[in-house]
């Protein structure tokens, strides 16, 4: 790594105004969010009948999206906690990217679950009448905990950066300065402050790991605690966590590439970062592949009558196209790309990351829908529309709106605050000089 001066680092990493590309991007995201909001207002006035969900497919892409959001949010704990605790230093510039992905994803996971409710105005019943034996209550508890720990892991490392940003008032503008001083004016870079802060981050990094495992395990139990083919599995917790780390790391690859291009961060997010993240994605894809084999091989070997329709549907039947598409894009092609050294260059790594994210979204769709359309008793005495599920435009609009909303939070965050931690980069650089 070449040596960069402190001043240069601050200049490079301080938040910058959007260029025209940035503005167009924000406008596009806002349009998606707006369409989603309109669709939701329509759903509120007419009820869930505007969706394509019916009594058999009683959950649809809202729940798929919820699982997707919870999954992608797990990367915050992987990059900030697991890598930090194992003394991996190269990941420092990526911590904040991972953490803002986590916070924005978990925010929209909560929003989308309320969207799925038939009576959202009774949300408070979860607190006034909550019963601890329901996995939904467990999910509410762990998701809330994870949200606050993630917010703290985002905020605490920012304190030192606020201090730096407040020293370059001219560049940032008065509005942003108000924001910085509101959140960070008490920070004086005193040794005691730094000591307390580092210790807090250390404790949170340890705490977030079991909580992160808990959120996705509990989310998998929303399915695994039922008797349905495809969900009635003891493999589900581990299978979900493996998939979650994979999609989150894919998302980090995508975000790294975009931020590097948009903010010209070549010196900070280097080719070496893509190389290392690429290797991590390969490893995670292999782990996820292993859990997929576990999830399908044993039931397919036995081919129990209750599982038969479900398994045939996935492998050769109505869902087979989506199934093989999802497995190829989320696992096989990314492994083939990233296993080569050339494939771990920024652009191909970015493509692989995109594939992982897209494939993983469809994988979540396949976790929810095929099972529900293969009930244990035959589908009978229901209108024809109850036997199929293809999301209505309102569902697509809301799902896309929520994804756009998540990206909007990340984009706005990067506009207001340094997306790469300034102080930590300077510290790393000084460490490097000593060596």
């Amino acid at each position, binding site marked *: 790594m070449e040596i960069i001066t402190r001043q240069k680092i601050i200049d490079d990493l301080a938040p910058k105004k959007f260029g025209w590309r940035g503005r167009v991007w924000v406008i596009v995201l806002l349009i998606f969010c707006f369409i989603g909001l309109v669709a939701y207002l329509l759903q509120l006035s007419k009820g869930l009948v505007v969706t394509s969900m019916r009594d058999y497919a009683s959950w649809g892409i809202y729940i798929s999206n919820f699982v997707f959001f919870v999954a992608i949010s797990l990367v915050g704990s992987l990059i900030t906690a697991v890598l930090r605790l194992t003394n991996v230093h190269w990941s420092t510039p990526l911590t904040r990217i991972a953490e803002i992905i986590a916070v924005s994803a978990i925010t929209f996971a909560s929003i989308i679950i309320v969207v799925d409710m*038939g009576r*959202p105005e*009774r949300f408070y019943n979860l607190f006034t009448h909550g019963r601890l034996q329901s996995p939904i209550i467990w999910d*509410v508890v762990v998701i809330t905990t994870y949200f606050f720990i993630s917010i703290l892991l985002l905020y605490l490392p920012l304190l030192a950066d606020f201090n730096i940003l407040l020293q370059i008032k001219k560049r940032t503008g008065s509005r942003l300065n108000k924001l910085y001083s509101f959140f960070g004016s008490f920070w004086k870079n005193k040794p005691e402050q730094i000591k307390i802060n580092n210790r807090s981050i250390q404790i949170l990094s340890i705490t977030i790991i079991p909580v992160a495992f808990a959120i996705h395990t509990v989310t998998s139990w929303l399915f695994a*605690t039922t008797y349905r083919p495809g969900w009635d599995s003891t493999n589900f917790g581990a299978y979900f966590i493996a998939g979650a780390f994979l999609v989150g790391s894919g998302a980090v690859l995508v975000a790294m590439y975009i931020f590097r291009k948009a903010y010209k961060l070549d010196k900070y997010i280097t080719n070496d970062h893509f190389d290392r993240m690429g290797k991590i994605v390969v490893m995670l894809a292999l782990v996820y592949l292993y859990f997929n084999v576990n999830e399908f091989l044993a039931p397919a070997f036995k081919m129990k009558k209750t599982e038969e329709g479900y398994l045939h549907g996935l492998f050769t039947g109505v869902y087979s196209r989506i199934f093989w598409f999802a497995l190829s894009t989320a696992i096989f092609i990314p492994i083939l790309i990233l296993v080569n050294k050339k494939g771990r260059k920024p652009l191909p790594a970015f493509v692989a990351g995109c594939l992982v994210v897209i494939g993983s979204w469809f994988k979540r769709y396949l976790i929810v829908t095929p099972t529900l359309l293969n009930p*244990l*008793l*035959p589908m009978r005495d*229901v*209108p024809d529309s109850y036997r199929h599920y293809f999301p209505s435009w309102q569902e697509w609009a809301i799902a896309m709106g929520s994804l756009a909303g998540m990206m909007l939070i990340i984009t706005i965050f990067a506009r207001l605050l340094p997306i790469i931690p300034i102080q930590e980069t300077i510290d790393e650089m000084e460490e490097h000089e000593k060596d």
Partner: protein
Amino acid sequence: MSTSDTSRRDFLAAGLLAGAALTGCSGNENPFDKAQKSGMITPTGKTVKLLSVDGEVVEMDEAFLRPVSDLPPVSNAEARVGIPGKKFVMVIDLSRCKSVKACQASCNHAHELNPGENWIKVNVMQDAEYTAPYWQPTTCMHCDEPPCVKVCPVDATFKREDGLVLIDSDRCIGCRFCMAACPYTTRVFNWEAPQIPKEMAAKPYSCETSTPQKIGTVSKCDFCADMTRKGELPHCVSACPNGVFFFGDMIEDTVSNGAETFRFSELIKDKAGYRLMEDLGTKPSVYYLPPVNRNFPFEDKEDSLGEKKDKIKS
């Protein structure tokens, strides 16, 4: 039909209340006097005879009759506990079913279900390629280990002392976890607003009648808890022309389809009764008698939606 039913019920309730008011008041203070003096009520001169709660026949002026709102017969707290000393059970005799679906029609009517929704489904079953096909009506199984109750986050669906699993639609948040949890897929969701007259929709919800249906909440077969409280048979039982459904109390050890009554234990023993998906450990309260020595040959005149084929052609 249903509206005339309710108006009759209103009328009776009004009569009872008015009668109770008359007998309850001593001669010194007639609550109707004040109203009469202020000119709010003018007697019509026509009198009606009413039966008071004490069984006394009283006579009063028609002008005093007022319709009262149809309050649920029992409070929510009572409806959640159930009827003490009872354990309700249903026996469905598959040898008698020819998919007439009178059960379904009477159930849908009594519970004000939206068109297309059915709590009772009559499945065509064929367990293996060479085994005999048969009709299998399914209701809620009112499991003793109900998976739906386990997963409900807000105690909106609950298990009562008398074995019934009911739903409080005023509390349900519409998460549909219970629908995913139920292995018998017996639960029905109100995707759209119930298509019932405004006056009916405005009535207070009762867990025992499961009416009025509420948009955005889950509903299902309730074993007609309101009928059982009155000591009557559920609607499907009395509607079935072939006597397929038997209903009763395990503690009394009696089940009846209206025309015939059996010892529950003997019926199950003699006819080799069984429950659905015993291996799941849900312990249903609905028992089936196998489709042997059938009263009717199996004839499937329905399309896959469960509609009669000749009906569609016409």
